[in-house]
């Protein structure tokens, strides 16, 4: 309820100066995009789809309405339909915010706002804005992106000129509440283990980011630091007895998920010159999740994911790119489940300003990212249900206006 009030307040404040103006003066705009993807894998099923048989279960549609009643004030709201295998299949609020930019040095945005961490977090769910079909999954996992995309709170931002030979420094600072709904794709693997979070998970998030636009034209170096405070939520643990005299009996136990505080430093850089772009990012994320239920146990992770990517605009309409990425969970036992390594080769063709198509090939080793148990059931020959390597082919078409 409080979050609804924040959103309503943001829009209402934005609308006050708007009421006295004509619709033309309000500069009301409606924009949107839609994408349809197709996945095919040679080994495991990936991203909760039946990809080994070829799966079209990847659709997104986004629409927003914005208004700029004065040059310094911008208000808007954006909704999204997202489906990827068993993730999503729901319409959600991307953001709803009022933004007041007093000058290049200082601006503030509040409501439900995108979190400006890392190199690509603000645009990681905006398919028309990049070459790739899937961003490096070690840093930007699509399965759990909702937990990092937006928060109910505010962002302050601005750009400071450092001097004629020192470039510019862009700063961002944010704080608010992250809310992951009970049916969010983030919980798919929990549900498959019989754990249903009745209220989802809410937590206080804050952070800061600096982007240094260096005196070298096209070179940006940056760092961000994100903190998610300790949070907890009740869950229901359902266990079906698999064998013995009580076979089939369902045992239901209430419990509580406790997520200890997460601190996430992130370092990144990008260089662009004419048709060429190269970028990289490294982050550190360690977490402890306590599942206090029928059989309490802590789940620890300590990941240091990174990627390096480059792209080249071959013609005005065709862009080609390649990236490599790795994620190793140093708390995990040795084996393919400990790591995720991926080489991706991608091409994007823009038919015009509105319509584009993408094709992408992934060479994945390790199973630490992107897999669920339900669609990769264990067998006698394959107790984990997963092959150590997967080849993933993606085709995608998109339209935006």
């Amino acid at each position: 309820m409080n979050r609804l009030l924040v959103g309503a307040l943001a829009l209402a404040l934005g609308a006050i100066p708007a009421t006295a103006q004509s619709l033309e003066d309000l500069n009301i705009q409606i924009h949107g995009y839609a994408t349809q993807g197709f996945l095919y894998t040679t080994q495991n099923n990936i991203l909760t789809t039946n990809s080994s048989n070829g799966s079209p279960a990847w659709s997104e549609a986004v629409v927003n309405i914005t208004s700029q009643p004065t040059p310094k004030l911008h208000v808007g709201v954006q909704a999204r339909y997202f489906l990827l295998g068993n993730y999503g299949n729901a319409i959600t609020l991307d953001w709803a915010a009022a933004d007041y930019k007093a000058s290049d040095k200082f601006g503030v945005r509040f409501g439900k706002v995108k979190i400006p961490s890392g190199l690509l977090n603000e645009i990681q769910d905006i398919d028309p804005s990049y070459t790739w079909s899937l961003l490096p999954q070690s840093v930007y996992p699509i399965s759990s992106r909702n937990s990092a995309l937006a928060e109910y709170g505010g962002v302050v931002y601005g750009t400071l000129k450092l001097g004629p030979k020192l470039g510019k420094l862009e700063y961002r600072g944010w704080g608010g509440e992250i809310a992951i709904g009970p049916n969010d794709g983030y919980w798919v693997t929990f549900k498959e283990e019989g754990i249903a979070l009745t209220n989802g998970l809410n937590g206080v998030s804050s952070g800061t980011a600096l982007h240094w636009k260096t005196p070298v034209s096209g070179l940006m170096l940056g760092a961000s630091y994100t903190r998610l405070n300790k949070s907890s939520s009740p869950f229901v643990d359902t266990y079906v007895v698999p064998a013995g005299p009580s076979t089939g009996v369902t045992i239901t136990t209430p419990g509580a998920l406790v997520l200890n505080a997460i601190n996430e430093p992130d370092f990144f850089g990008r260089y662009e010159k004419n048709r060429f772009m190269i970028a990289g990012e490294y982050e550190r994320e360690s977490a402890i999740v306590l599942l206090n239920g029928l059989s309490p146990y802590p789940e620890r992770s300590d990941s240091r994911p990174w990627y390096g990517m480059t792209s080249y605009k071959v013609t005005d309409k065709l862009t080609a790119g390649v990236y490599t990425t790795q994620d190793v969970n140093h708390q995990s036992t040795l084996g393919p489940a400990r790591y995720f390594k991926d080489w991706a080769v991608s091409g994007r063709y823009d038919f015009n300003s509105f319509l584009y198509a993408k094709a992408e090939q992934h060479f994945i080793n390790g199973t630490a990212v992107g897999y669920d148990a339900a669609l990769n059931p264990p067998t006698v020959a394959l107790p984990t249900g997963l092959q150590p390597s997967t080849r993933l082919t993606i085709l995608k078409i998109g339209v935006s206006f």
Partner: protein
Amino acid sequence: MKKLLFALLLAASASIFVVQVKAQVIVIANPSVKASEVSKNDLKEVFTGASTSIGGGNVVPILLKAGTVHEEFLQAYIGKNDTAYRAGWRSLVFSGQASMPKSLEGEAAVVEFVAHNAGAIGYIGKATPHEGVKVLSIK
């Protein structure tokens, strides 16, 4: 040999023509804009949404919807074609950071809008009548 000379002559003429076309795009601003000149980098930042000021004063970029002058401006000062340029703005629009700049049909409409709106800045062909606006020189 004659064919080769003819081809070279044609290529040289074409390059001269391109230079002349580039020189024909001018940047105009509402008289309220205090600056009389702007660096190529500052112009690029304003028209890509990275900045909203020139010389300390707020400005609002105005675009042409399409056409030779539009493409010429983008190539000369932004370094992108229309598709890549608008894709950059869409990143800002879909992440809630900005609204798409107003795009107008025709250079006369750009002159009209820039002349009557404080802080407006646009671009037109040099030959287009532009009373009521000031021309910014590019550093």
